[in-house]
């Protein structure tokens, strides 16, 4: 598995897209910090970008890579290798290289602007960790979709739809249900609903760590009581981990059974 991971990783590291992705984050980081020297404010702005873009790029990139390297995958399948090894190796190669681009692209400008001397370091670390989680989650979901759909167009369509659902439509439904059931106590519901969507969960985690949380009022207080504690943080990281592991597990199972 490691060999395939290494191969995929280096293959991607050499590819143009990784560089573009890396340079994009590098430019974003520098521009943000250039415009606004305040590290903690930059973290907030970055959050908005990361929450939306990281899942999108993870999804598109995952699907693209899977379809593009299909012939190579078929070649590998002819070798005496375990199937899960092949697919997991590829998956970790993609997700790993994307995460590396994210870490380096954002890390370099922030370190240069004095991250280690700033109090924002924990928030920034949390931002990167959730960013990494989102990459792993959405790449895994994308691989699942690609594996289940021979038709590339369909695969792409489903992948984009998935992203759209979790990033936008889910919040719309969430909002709608909050308004429809406004007569009822909704704190637990909104907590659970937030937990169920990795994008919302990441957003809430980061928001509550920043002092913008005072805006959230009563509901915020309920959230803060949960997410603000170490226990809440642990639970949310566990949920994120679950979100990562479930698609990976399905990937392993599905790839074993799939008829190529």
């Amino acid at each position, binding site marked *: 598995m490691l060999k395939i991971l290494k191969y995929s990783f280096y293959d991607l590291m050499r590819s143009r897209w990784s560089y573009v992705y890396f340079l994009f984050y590098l430019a974003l980081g520098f521009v943000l910090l250039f415009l606004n020297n305040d590290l903690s404010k930059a973290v907030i702005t970055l959050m908005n970008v990361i929450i939306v873009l990281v899942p999108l790029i993870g999804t598109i990139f995952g699907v693209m890579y899977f379809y593009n390297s299909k012939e190579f995958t078929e070649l590998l399948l002819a070798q005496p290798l375990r199937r899960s090894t092949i697919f997991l190796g590829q998956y970790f190669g993609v997700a790993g290289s994307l995460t590396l681009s994210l870490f380096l692209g954002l890390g370099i400008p922030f370190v240069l602007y004095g991250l280690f001397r700033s109090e924002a370091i924990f928030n920034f670390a949390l931002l990167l960790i959730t960013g990494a989680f989102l990459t792993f989650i959405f790449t895994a979901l994308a691989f699942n979709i690609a594996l289940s759909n021979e038709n590339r167009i369909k695969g792409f369509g489903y992948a984009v739809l998935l992203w759209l659902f979790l*990033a936008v439509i889910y919040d719309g439904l969430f909002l709608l249900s909050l308004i429809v059931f406004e007569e009822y106590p909704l704190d637990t519901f909104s907590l659970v609903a937030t937990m169920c969507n990795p994008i919302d969960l990441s957003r809430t985690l980061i928001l509550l760590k920043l002092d913008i949380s005072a805006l959230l009022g009563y509901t915020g207080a309920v959230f803060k009581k949960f997410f603000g504690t170490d226990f809440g943080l642990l639970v949310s990281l566990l949920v994120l981990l679950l979100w990562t592991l479930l698609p990976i597990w399905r990937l392993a199972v599905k790839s074993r059974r799939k008829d190529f």
Partner: protein
Amino acid sequence: MKHTLSYSKLLFFLILIGGGQFLMGRTITICPTCDVSSIKQGIASAMEYDTLLIKKGTYNEYNIVIDKPLTLLGEDYPVIDGEDMGEIITIVSDNVTVEGLFIINVGTSYTTDYAAVRVVKSENFLIKHLVLEKLFFGIYLEKANNGKVYHNKIIGDAVDEYNSGNGIQLWYSHHVEVDRNIVQGTRDGIYLEFSDQVTINNNISSDNIRYGLHFMFSNDDTYTNNTFENNGAGVAVMFSKNIRMRNNTFRKNWGTASFGMLLKEINDAEIVGNTFEENTIGINIEGSNRIDYTRNDFINNGWAIKVRGACYTNTFKNNNFLYNSFDISYNSKVNDNIFKENYWSSYTGYDLDKNGIGDAPYRPVKLFSYIVNRTPETIVLLRSLFMDIIDFSEKVSPVFTPDNLMDSSPLMQKTE
């Protein structure tokens, strides 16, 4: 006759303030080793208009009643320790000056409002350069008019609202000047009840549990150049008329139930040139009419202005709204307030004729803030992509937000 009396009082005051060390009457020196070793003893032996010069030392006294016109002058901040027994200095005479004392350990009571210095039904008092620590109430003016509270430092250690007192309290006290005081760690920094024509200038009120400055049923008051920082809420103005608020700074009143300024049932007020920075809610307005908001800066607040209802004919002009999460929140579709010539940092319009005024109107109420008002739980969707999208669509064609609530002449540049 009455006229000459007040003139003589004025003259006395002028001499007292202007003349510095030149004082009328005898001077009685009090020190722990002198013949007169306690302040009570000193007051008992003094004649009217004498000066008690209190030398450095610690005086364990409480219930000191000043019942004749005297000047209590501390040298090198002598300590008056009330030993938590009750009230420390009570002034019941006109023309009393208390200066330069360090008063600590005022008794806490649940039935009596013990104060470090209380002025009862007296005129022409001057309280200055005091340092108060470990207090319950600090300076308490009760039906005391025409006095001055100047340059005192009040440092409380209040934790709960129910067993703490206010730094400076005015109750039925008119024409009082509260200037250059520093108040921190009390319940309300400065509290006014039924007190008219009071001026409050250049004070710094910070870290108080409840309000930095609190008005109740007090009319025609002015406060300028004060700083209110990190209080439970900056300033609460309630049930008062004709209050002028100018050039104050409200900063970092940040918390789930905090605001820079709370207006409740305020009419005909003037809010000019203030700065609201990093408050959860800049100004919370309820039932307040005919107020002029001019040249204020709202910077980095959660909500710059939250209008709760029953607010009519208010005018917002030439304000700067910079980088607030929400500029204005409104809970009804009816609008009778005027917004014009403000600068909004989130304004995205254009100015083709280069007259400094944007050609497209700005709508300060976002759909999201409307929704949050309706269902507060939806705030958990703050900063989600979905909200940005519907905010954008609402901006393009307003459906839910009051369509006449807009700034039809938004400025392109910040006003100074």
